[in-house]
C-alpha cells in the first residue's frame, strides 16, 4: 500500500483510477488537484496500463522494467498484484469484460458491477477491495456522484480515528480507497474535475507527486464539494 505522512499520520491509499480516452500530458498535469481520483486511465483499457497504474497506486514494486512488453513484464507483476481485490464498475458490458480480462491476467480478483449505486453498496467500511476502477460517465450516476459519498464516508471515519494519534504511536491507516476513474472523454472529465476540486490525478511512476497530491487532498477534503 502506498503510504505517506501528513501531520504524522500514515495513510493507506485505495486508489481511484480514472480511465479516460484522450488524456494529454497537459491535461494530466492540470488535473493534479486534490480530489477523489488517484489516477486517470484512458479508455479503452490497455492491459499493461491497468496493471501499471494499479501497481503504482498500490505502491507495489517500485522498480519496474520499462519497455518490456506485457507478456514479459506480466510475470513480475503477476506475483505483486496476485490476490488483490478490485471492484470494476462500468455500465458498458464489453469494456467491463476487457477490464476484467486484463486484471485477471495478473491474478487479481475482480468483481464487476454496472452502476454507481451497486458499487456504493459494496464500498462500505471496512473495505474488502484494494482498489476501485470506475467509469465516470455512467448515465444514472456519474463518477463524481459515485465517489463523493465514498470520500465523505471516509472523511467522517477518519475524523473519528484521528483522536489520539501521533507519530510515535505507530502507523495507522486512514480510509481512502484508491479509485481509478475511467472515462472516454478525459478532457471534459478533467475540466469538470478541476472545477469541482474533485480529481487527484497522478501519472504512473510519480509516487512522490501522488503522495503530495493526496496529502493535499486530505488537508482540503472538508472544503471540497461538488454539485
Amino acid at each position, binding site marked *: 500500500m502506498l503510504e505517506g505522512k501528513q501531520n504524522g499520520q500514515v495513510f493507506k491509499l485505495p486508489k481511484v483510477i480514472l480511465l479516460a480516452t484522450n488524456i494529454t500530458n497537459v491535461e494530466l498535469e492540470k488535473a493534479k488537484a486534490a480530489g477523489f481520483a488517484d489516477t486517470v486511465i484512458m479508455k*479503452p483499457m490497455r*492491459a499493461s496500463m491497468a496493471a501499471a497504474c494499479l501497481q503504482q497506486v498500490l505502491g507495489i514494486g517500485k522498480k519496474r522494467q520499462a519497455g518490456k512488453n506485457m507478456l514479459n513484464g506480466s510475470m513480475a507483476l503477476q506475483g505483486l498484484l496476485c490476490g488483490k481485490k478490485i471492484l470494476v464498475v462500468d455500465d458498458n458490458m464489453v469494456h467491463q469484460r*476487457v477490464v476484467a480480462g486484463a486484471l485477471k*491476467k495478473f491474478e487479481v480478483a475482480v468483481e464487476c458491477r454496472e452502476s454507481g449505486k451497486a458499487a456504493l453498496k459494496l464500498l462500505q467500511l471496512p473495505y474488502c477491495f484494494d482498489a476501485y476502477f470506475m467509469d465516470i460517465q455512467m448515465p444514472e450516476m456519474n463518477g463524481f456522484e459515485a465517489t463523493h459519498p465514498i470520500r465523505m464516508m471516509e472523511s467522517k471515519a477518519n475524523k473519528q480515528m484521528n483522536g489520539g494519534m501521533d507519530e510515535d504511536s505507530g502507523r495507522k491507516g486512514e480510509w481512502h480507497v484508491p479509485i481509478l476513474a475511467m472515462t472516454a472523454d478525459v478532457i471534459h472529465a478533467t475540466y469538470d474535475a478541476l472545477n469541482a476540486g474533485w480529481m487527484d490525478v497522478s501519472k504512473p511512476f510519480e509516487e512522490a507527486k501522488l503522495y503530495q497530491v493526496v496529502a493535499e487532498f486530505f488537508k482540503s477534503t472538508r472544503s471540497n464539494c461538488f454539485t
Partner: protein
Amino acid sequence: MERNPMRRQLAIMRQSLFDQGHVDEQFVQLEELQDDANPNFVEEVVTLYYRDSARIILNIEQALERKPFDFRKLDAYMHQFKGSSSSIGAKKVKAESTLFREYCKSGNGEGCMRSFQQLKKEYATLRKKLGTYFQLARQAGPVETASRPK
C-alpha cells in the same frame, strides 16, 4: 513467417484487418489477453460486442423513427456503442460513431441518418471480416503470441 499455410493465410488476413483500418491497437490488446487459460478470449469479447451492438442499433433505429429526434437520447445510445466498439478496437465503426455524435450535438438530423447508415455498413463489413477471420483461426489451431502489425 508462418510455415503452416493456414497460419500464414491467417496472418495475412489479420494484417489486412489492420491495414484496411477495420481494427486498431486495442484489438492487439485483446489478443494479448488470450492465453491457455482464456483461449477464446478475443472471440468471446467480440461476440459480446455483437450482442451489445444489436441491442443498441435497434434502439437507435427505433429512436430515429420518432420525430422530432431526441438528440440527447441518440447521443447517449451512440456513446454506449462507441464505448463498446472502442473496447474491441473497431476503428472504422468507432470513427463513424464519433461522427454521429457530432451530428447529435449540432442537432443535425439528416447528418445523423446518413452517418447511421454508413455506420451500419461499416459494422456489417467488420462482422463479416471478423467472422471469416475467427473461422480460419479455429481451423488453423491456436496461435502462440500476438504480433504487432507493421
